[in-house]
């Protein structure tokens, strides 16, 4: 049972910007939640507070009912995929994958054999078995993103966090990786929070979406419900109208 709960969470940066305002949000066990909203609406901030990369100004964040506000990032049991991959350039793929495992402490400490078998499994699952001895800069963009995904998943995180993981890829690869991410989610059943500004990505990936604007939650529900019953004008404009526009463009293209 891994659930995440934001309770009246507010983030105020040093310069006074209120990036997230009084956010109440709940992610159920095994759920794929997509945080959707225009750029600058506070999606990354929401995610980074959960990861421990930003302090929480007000309110609490709970994982499985435990308040994690003051836990260091490494102790929260999370895996994160960054937009820029953030692979360690001076390590090969195997070392990149096993880096986090080797840092585990106390009860969670993992033996050498176990690390090796986990790395092999993860590499097989992501089609990276041939690349284990290569450096990140020798891989293609898609492969790098897969390594980043593997590095986050290999620790068997309680929650998987992804911040616009596909924006650096071209359209073709993005489509392919989207399918792969969904497949992995169904295989592993890991609670996932996925940040994007791309409506199509949100619609195809999410169990539920949380739409944000100017730091405030607009609607939180399954994607089709948001499309059919937008809660307010913002959701109507940002999601419904946008999707209809795409549909119309496609229709008019193929009409004759």
């Amino acid at each position, binding site marked *: 049972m891994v659930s995440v709960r934001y309770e009246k969470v507010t983030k105020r940066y040093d310069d006074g910007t209120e990036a997230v305002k009084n956010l109440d949000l709940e992610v159920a066990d095994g759920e794929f939640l997509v945080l959707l909203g225009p750029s600058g609406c506070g999606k990354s901030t929401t995610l980074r507070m959960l*990861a*421990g*990369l930003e302090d929480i100004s007000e309110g609490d964040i709970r994982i499985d009912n435990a308040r994690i506000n003051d836990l*260091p*990032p*490494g*102790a929260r049991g*999370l*895996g*994160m995929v*960054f937009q*820029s*991959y*953030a*692979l*360690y*350039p*001076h390590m090969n793929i195997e070392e990149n994958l096993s*880096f*986090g495992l080797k*840092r*585990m*402490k106390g009860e969670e400490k993992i033996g050498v054999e176990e690390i090796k078998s986990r790395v092999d499994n993860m590499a097989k699952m992501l089609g990276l078995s041939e690349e284990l001895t290569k450096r*990140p*800069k020798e891989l293609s963009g898609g492969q*790098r993103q897969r390594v980043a995904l593997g*590095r986050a998943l290999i*620790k068997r995180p309680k929650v998987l966090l992804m911040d616009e993981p596909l924006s650096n890829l071209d359209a073709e690869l993005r489509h392919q990786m989207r399918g792969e991410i969904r497949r992995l989610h169904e295989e592993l059943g890991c609670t996932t929070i996925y940040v994007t500004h791309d409506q199509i990505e949100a619609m195809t990936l999410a169990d539920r979406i949380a739409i944000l604007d100017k730091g405030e939650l607009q609607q939180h529900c399954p994607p089709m419900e948001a499309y059919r019953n937008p809660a307010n004008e913002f959701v109507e404009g940002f999601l419904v109208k946008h999707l209809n526009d795409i549909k119309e463009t496609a229709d008019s293209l193929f009409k004759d």
Partner: protein
Amino acid sequence: MSGERAMRDWYAPLEIYTLSSWLRAAFIVNLFLLSFDFLRGEGLVLSLLGILMLGLLVNTLPDGSASWRRDVSLLLSGGIIAIGVLSVLSEPIGFVLWMESWLIVPGAISLYWISSPHVSRWNREEMELDRIERGLARNNEYSSSYQRIGKHVILAHFAFIVLLPVLWIIDISLSPGNALGGSFADSFTTEHFSKILNGDQFWIWMTNSLIVSIGTTIAGLALAVPAAYAFSRYKFAGRDQAMFSFLLVQMFPGIIIIVPYFMVMKTLGLLNSHLGLILAYSVTALPLCVWMLKGFFDTVPRELEESALLDGCSRFEIFTRIILPLSLPAIAVTALFSFLAAWNEFLLALTFNTSNDMYTLPVGLASMISATGQSWGDFAAASLLVSLPVVILFVLFQKFLVEGLSAGGVKG
């Protein structure tokens, strides 16, 4: 037939085409060589005349329309050769031969090419169109490679000019006696080297220099790396002011701080010690080291550290496992910089360490001049030996240097 006219107007035989760019190059090189004549105080007038004629020649090269240009060019070429030969005859030293070859060779090539039947036919406008066509194609094909050769020849000369003082020192160190002149390799001896290497003093100074330089490098890095990391990653009150005040210190000429430094060292009882110099050098090199390293740390993406944070690293582990390995090239460059600064420093070493057995190499070298009169041979040999570790370091660090100076290539 305007097309034909245009081709005739634009076409110049490959010889002329190439010649004009090479003559320009020769002109530039000769301008540089002029400074040698000036230093030697001889042959200045002849060289000036040669350069003048080279300049004229570039502008009178045949252009396919006025036939008098060819005659003038031939005349000038002959004149240039004559001047070169005259200078060589007046002083047949190897060095002068090299200098004057920059008049003789271009002159000879010019004479030969301009008088070729091909050029003369073109100059009389007697060339058929199909030959012009072929010639234009040839120009296209060869001109770029000719220009490349020309560039390399010129660069090689400039490299030689830069190396000349070193070659001179090598010559002096290998010549018997203590004269400064003599032509290259006319006689050969290793007496200066064995004298220096067998004497105790040189080794004492060498040891001092090594201790001080290596100590400075280690102490400097131990201070600069953490400081630069903090400046790059943490926000704290007075950060920008601190960075700027670092620069401020660099703006004063070093000689101003000698007296205060001396007082401090005297109070601390660190005169005539290695530690005193190490402290002074580390502090002097610190601002630049911190700035260099901060610039590099700034290029390491924050997300790498955040990623390591989520992987369970402490701040310190992030520093040792992520930042340090990634910054090795930059750190190597900084280390080399501190080492060189300490190795070559003269003023502070002269002021602080006054007893003979605490001299560093630069001070020791300087003391040789007054102590043993004019023994230039020993002096040259010693200065070569002093530069040797630096050369070795540069060769070893070459890869890092190139990487470090073009730092920032950390992109995932």
